[in-house]
């Protein structure tokens, strides 16, 4: 008999889980009661979640129908999704931000393919982001002008964060290298800047950019608020990037620099060809964390009255016809945020995996727990 069970073990994986459950979940009266009651609780929660999300949910109809059904009101999302995603951008011209998003998604998709990696992809990103600014604005392309105060929703969030990532990365590298410099002036300036920025919350920097900064400008001279906010974000995350990159720089053994110098490379070649490629590689995980953090921090733009995704979500709730569907709206927006952040994190994993491992240290190390 026991031999039969043993053979069943090898053949049928479900037999293994039955004995596993017996051994771990039902091995005493107390554990049996615990298992059953927790099981019931989980089942209960799961069933109400499923019925709220799907079974009782209203997918079509008006607010009244939604309130009667008691489930989620996805009809509200269908009704408001255009506003949540595109904000106050003129309805007739919504193809412009839509095209921008489409381009970003395509480029992001292409960035996952190794065979596309290279200068062409890099320039495509830069060109597309630059072109998108012109496209959303319209003037230079001979289209209807749409002021930046009307830009909003997902396109604004994507634009601000991608330009922010693209600019704060090189800025962070420059700051980090300056902080390691032998030139006292350069080093001091960099330390001052980094510590100053890191010592202040992003909100206060945004406030300074939107309220304080214009006061110092001469009369009649204005700089676009969106642009000021963008610069503030670049400065802020540049300071954080600098510290992340400095960590990488410090991890490079001195022998690497000595070897580079001994074959006659100049200091800047040593930095560019030997130190930075290794340092930036080491800090990919914290770099992506900083980027993801910045992506989510764009939601703070609300406080200086820029209508990013979080703002449009919130203001979609104030429609008097559709009051009381905050849960649906926030779940919807949370999903958009999650998809964006999760894709960034997948891309970074992909990049990390493509790096040559040196065979000894690296990702495969197990610590036995």
């Amino acid at each position, binding site marked *: 008999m026991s031999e039969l069970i043993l053979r069943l073990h090898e053949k049928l994986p479900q037999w293994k889980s039955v004995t596993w459950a017996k051994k771990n979940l039902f091995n005493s009266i107390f554990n049996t009661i615990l298992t059953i009651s927790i099981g019931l609780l989980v089942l209960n929660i799961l069933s109400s979640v499923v019925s709220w999300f799907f079974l009782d949910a209203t997918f079509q109809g008006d607010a009244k129908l939604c309130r009667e059904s008691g489930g989620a009101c996805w009809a509200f999302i269908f009704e408001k999704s255009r506003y949540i995603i595109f904000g106050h951008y003129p309805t007739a011209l919504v193809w412009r931000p839509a095209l921008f998003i489409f381009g970003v998604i395509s480029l992001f998709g292409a960035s996952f393919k190794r065979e596309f990696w290279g200068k062409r992809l890099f320039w495509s990103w830069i060109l597309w982001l630059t072109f998108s600014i012109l496209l959303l604005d319209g003037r230079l392309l001979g289209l209807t002008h749409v002021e930046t105060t009307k830009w909003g929703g997902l396109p604004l969030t994507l634009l601000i964060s991608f330009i922010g990532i693209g600019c704060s990365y090189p800025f962070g590298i420059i700051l980090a290298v300056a902080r390691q410099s032998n030139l006292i002036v350069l080093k001091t300036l960099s330390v001052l800047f980094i510590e100053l920025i890191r010592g202040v919350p992003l909100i206060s920097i945004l406030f300074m950019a939107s309220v304080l900064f214009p006061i110092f400008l001469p009369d009649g001279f204005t700089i676009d608020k969106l642009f000021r906010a963008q610069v503030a974000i670049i400065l802020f995350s540049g300071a954080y990037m600098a510290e992340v990159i400095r960590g990488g720089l410090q991890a490079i*053994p001195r*022998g*690497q620099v*000595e*070897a*580079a*110098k*001994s*074959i*006659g*490379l*100049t*200091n800047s*070649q040593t930095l560019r*060809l*030997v130190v930075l*490629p*290794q340092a930036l*590689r080491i800090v990919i995980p914290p770099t992506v964390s900083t980027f993801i953090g910045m992506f989510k921090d764009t939601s703070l733009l609300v406080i200086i009255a820029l209508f990013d995704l979080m703002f449009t979500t919130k203001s979609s709730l104030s429609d008097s016809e559709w009051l009381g569907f905050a849960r649906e709206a926030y779940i919807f927006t949370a999903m958009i945020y999650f998809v964006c952040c999760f894709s960034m994190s997948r891309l970074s994993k992909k990049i990390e995996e493509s*790096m*040559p*491992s*040196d*065979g*000894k240290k690296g990702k495969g190390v197990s610590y036995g727990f």
Partner: protein
Amino acid sequence: MASSVLEFKKVNKWFGDLHVLDDIELTIKKGEIVVICGPSGSGKSTLIRCINQLETHASGEIYVLGTEMTDDARVLQSVRSRVGMVFQNFNLFPHLTILENLTLGPTWVKGASSDEVKEMALGNLRRVQIEEQANKYPGQLSGGQQQRVAIARSLCMNPEILLFDEPTSALDPEMVKEVLDVMVDLAKEGITMLVVTHEMGFAREVADRVIFMDEGKIIEQSTPELFFTNPSSDRSKKFLEQIL
């Protein structure tokens, strides 16, 4: 009379209170193979690291290939491109393939064309018998192989002087020979070599001169035969007793 390629005049250096180089006087002729030995902390590594100014000296003059070593970056760079160095820990660039490790210097320092550089790099890999590893990364090679790649890397700059800073000390015993064999071959080709090592077999086989250092001073210099059979100072006698 061969001309001197390297000259130390009254060179001094301190690490804090420690006098690591004490009035060093030294002249190396073209094509000479010199082995520097001595107990640890005697200043031998510092001495050869001063030649390409990975360490700076506090006083005195160092002439390398007729140029005085100063802190002028241009001078340093041009001298370094003519003086190769092999390190104890190999110091290969782990993010580059073996071939890229070799071509980096010639490409960026000499601005040579990529085909030419690649050809020469492969030639040098052949010279250290490791050509088949060209497209691997340093982390995939054994210590002995990595050190041979490091030697090939410095050869790619066509150096007039080769410096070896304890090239076999970080190797497993069974890999020491493959590296020494390469070094013996190089020595026979007539390139000027300064080798800091404890491998007395190597010194006996190819060295023209053995320098013994202790406490920052050059205690003794003589031919290998004389040094091993009849060392003139007590300290070198004691040192030889310990390592042989």
